[in-house]
């Protein structure tokens, strides 16, 4: 009988599935990975060392590049740290702007994840779909900061400047007629807030498309259900946070447990997974995406809040009215956190 040994394989650092430069030294038994030795330093830029030699403001654009799919969230953490050290109180308007753009960033991030995860699992269509929506979000970035990705928009004490009153327009050219340009500019006639509102109105339809493509898709489920199971204890021990931790069913979200900025003035729900495998992590993130328009159209509890246009139609689909989400009712994470349910969970913990 032949002696069978595990096969050692090098993956990356330049590999389409590595998304960036990740190198994995894998030990395979057939198709199953038995051991993986990740070499993660290929993108390390010693940001801390660079920041030691710069002023606080000069270091800020580096924060965009730490995790280049959640640019403003990194800036946010950096600004919050400086504000805490200096004891700066941020104006309420700036707090709302930062929360709104943090959520836009979250959506950018999750769309990138959903698209590329789908792509890696063999559905390249979803990548094209999510990048279509990312384009609109980049337009929002560009409108406030002038940059599509590395915005440097949040500053210690607030933001770089107020939201613009008008949106940039497409121009007529040799390849695009006046009529076509007019069509493309249709949702750019008002302010940035009008543009965002238009997006939040269109977006639920897009999420339905993603869910139609993936959530009930047999191939998708074959490749994710039961894969990479992480128990809650293991997830905590490994220091996991965010949607990965919630995918394992641990009720933890900083926006609820330790709310910063204006998050405690917002009403929003947080999906919670159950089994901790790949498919539930997908559901948790996909539902965060679905909750996005709840978050940008959050009900403000403060009368000071200036963005009446944005919040004009703030009736948000909550977790309990699942009939409001065609296509994701049958299979979804165990429960979603409504605010009251959340309080009860925390009280019992």
């Amino acid at each position: 009988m032949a002696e069978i040994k595990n096969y050692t394989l090098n993956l990356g650092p330049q590999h389409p599935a590595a998304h960036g430069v990740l190198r994995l030294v894998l030990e395979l038994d057939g198709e199953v990975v038995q051991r993986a030795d990740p070499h993660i330093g290929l993108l390390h830029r010693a940001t801390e060392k660079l920041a030691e030699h710069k002023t606080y403001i000069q270091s800020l654009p580096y924060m965009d590049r730490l995790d280049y799919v959640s640019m403003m969230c990194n800036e946010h953490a950096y600004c919050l740290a400086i504000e805490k050290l200096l004891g700066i109180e941020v104006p309420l308007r700036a707090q709302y702007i930062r929360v709104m753009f943090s959520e836009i960033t979250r959506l950018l991030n999750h769309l990138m994840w959903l698209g590329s995860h789908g792509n890696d699992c063999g559905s390249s269509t979803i990548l094209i779909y999510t990048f279509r929506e990312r384009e609109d979000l980049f337009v929002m970035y560009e409108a406030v900061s002038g940059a599509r990705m590395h915005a440097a928009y949040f500053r210690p004490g607030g933001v770089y400047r107020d939201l613009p009153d008008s949106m940039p327009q497409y121009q007529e050219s040799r390849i695009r007629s006046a009529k076509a340009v007019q069509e493309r500019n249709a949702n750019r006639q008002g302010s940035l807030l009008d543009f965002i509102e238009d997006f939040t109105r269109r977006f639920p339809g897009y999420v339905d498309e993603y869910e139609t493509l993936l959530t009930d898709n047999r191939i998708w489920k074959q490749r994710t259900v039961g894969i990479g199971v992480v128990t809650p204890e293991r997830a905590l021990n490994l220091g996991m946070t965010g949607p990965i931790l919630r995918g394992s069913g641990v009720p933890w979200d900083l926006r609820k447990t330790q709310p910063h900025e204006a998050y405690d003035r917002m009403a929003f729900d947080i999906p919670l997974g159950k089994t901790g495998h790949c498919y539930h992590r997908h559901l948790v993130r996909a539902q965060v995406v679905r909750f996005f328009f709840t978050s940008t159209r959050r009900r403000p509890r403060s009368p000071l809040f200036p963005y009446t246009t944005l919040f004009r139609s703030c009736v948000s689909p909550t977790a309990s009215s699942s009939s409001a989400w065609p296509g994701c009712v049958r299979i979804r994470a165990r429960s979603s956190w409504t605010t009251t349910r959340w309080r009860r969970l925390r009280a019992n913990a």
Partner: protein
Amino acid sequence: MTSVAIRPEELRENVAQALGALARSVTLARGEVTVVVAAADYLQAMQALRDAPACRFEQLIDLCGVDYSAYGDGAWEGLRYAVVVHLLSVGLNQRVRVRVFCPQDDMPVLPSVGGLWASALWFEREAFDLYGIVFDGHGDLRRILTDYGFIGHPFRKDFPLSGHVEMRYDQEQRRVVYEPVSIEPREITPRIIREENYGGLH
């Protein structure tokens, strides 16, 4: 401002009580609790923080090295290297920061807490890589972030920002070669000199 569910004064009392004589100091600043422990008590104190019913820090969020040699522009007289750990309790919604100084400056060694929290393993590799702090009992203390064959510990204060070597592809040798750095350190903090009537504003 960040608000934490549990009152920080209460947390400080709880941590001080759980650690007893193991803690050198338990301070509260800007709503955050910082514990300083001695290297000899480090492992025991961490175990207590994880298991004590009023602490229950089941997550290690961050572990990093610190080099104090340039602290306060040379005013620092104490030990050079420290390890700072941030713990989070998901169950009790509280955080604590633990600082422990390495007893020897020329050979900084501390016990590894990888047995308590698996997340510490990579962070300890990072602190070893960047600061040269050795973690006793780690089991797999390799470099994690720097280049293969890298020499030195780049986050030490005496390591220059530009490093010592640079890398390029050599056409003639047809391979990647390492050479001493060719760039000069430069001043990048702007010196702002405004002329009279700058920009016509005043």
